[in-house]
């Protein structure tokens, strides 16, 4: 069950991720990315990261991607010129490099479990809100606060930069 779900989600994620980078229309790319994020949320659920799965949707799909859409619509860039051409050396190089990267990573990660041991038995409450919250507000309190500062800074920065008249 879990395995077949994984394959379904993974296939969805991969296909839609490919759509993200291959679509010439940015809106399609954005929508494809939303689908990828949803699939990832599903995979998170399979990995017992319940809280993160939901947060993935709320933050990524609900906020970040809406922002992307907003900007795309605001700027309305239109379709990009045709960029995929097998004769273009740049694209050839990038494709080859990517294949090399994938090949090496695949070989390298194979047998990772041999190093770090078999999967620990599931306790069922690994990624619950309670657990995440407890860890976040005890062990990772300082990073959490710093992250909030980061968000504040980026907020101010974003407002400043998009403001037309800085006065």
């Amino acid at each position, binding site marked *: 069950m879990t395995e077949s779900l994984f394959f379904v989600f993974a296939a969805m994620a991969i296909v839609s991720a490919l759509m993200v980078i291959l679509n010439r229309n940015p809106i399609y790319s954005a929508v494809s990315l939303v689908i990828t994020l949803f699939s990832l949320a599903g995979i998170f659920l399979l990995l017992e990261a319940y809280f*993160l799965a939901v947060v993935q949707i709320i933050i990524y799909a609900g906020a970040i991607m809406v*922002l992307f859409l907003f900007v795309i619509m605001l700027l309305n860039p239109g379709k990009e010129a045709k960029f995929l051409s097998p004769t273009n050396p740049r694209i050839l190089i990038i494709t080859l490099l990517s294949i090399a990267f994938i090949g090496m990573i695949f070989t390298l990660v194979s047998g*990772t479990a041999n190093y*770090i041991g078999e999967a620990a038995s599931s306790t069922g409450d690994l990624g619950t809100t309670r657990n*995440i919250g407890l860890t976040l507000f005890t062990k990772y309190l300082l990073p959490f606060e710093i992250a909030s500062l980061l968000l504040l800074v980026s907020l101010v920065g974003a407002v400043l930069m998009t403001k037309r008249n800085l006065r």
Partner: protein
Amino acid sequence: MTPPLEYYLWFAALLFVIGVAGVLLRRNVIIVFMSIELMLNAVNVTFIAFSRQMNNIDGQIFVFFVMTLAAAEVAVGLAIIVAMFRNKESINIEDMNLLKW
């Protein structure tokens, strides 16, 4: 039947490379940004997969922070894109070449 860790890692690597290829191939800054999000998410998958593998919550906390970072990055990045568009009337990454000699 839970899929083994390798599956998740392979999947994440694939997603990551797709993101990389997007960054390198595309000329639209917004798409490039989205590809970066793809890469971030691929990393998140590995984090969570390892977290599950070791039954350790820390990996998920990292994912939480990555998301925070992504949110901040997108906010600032999109603001830059908007400001750039106002100046150059373009979101083609090749027009954003002020950072040179």
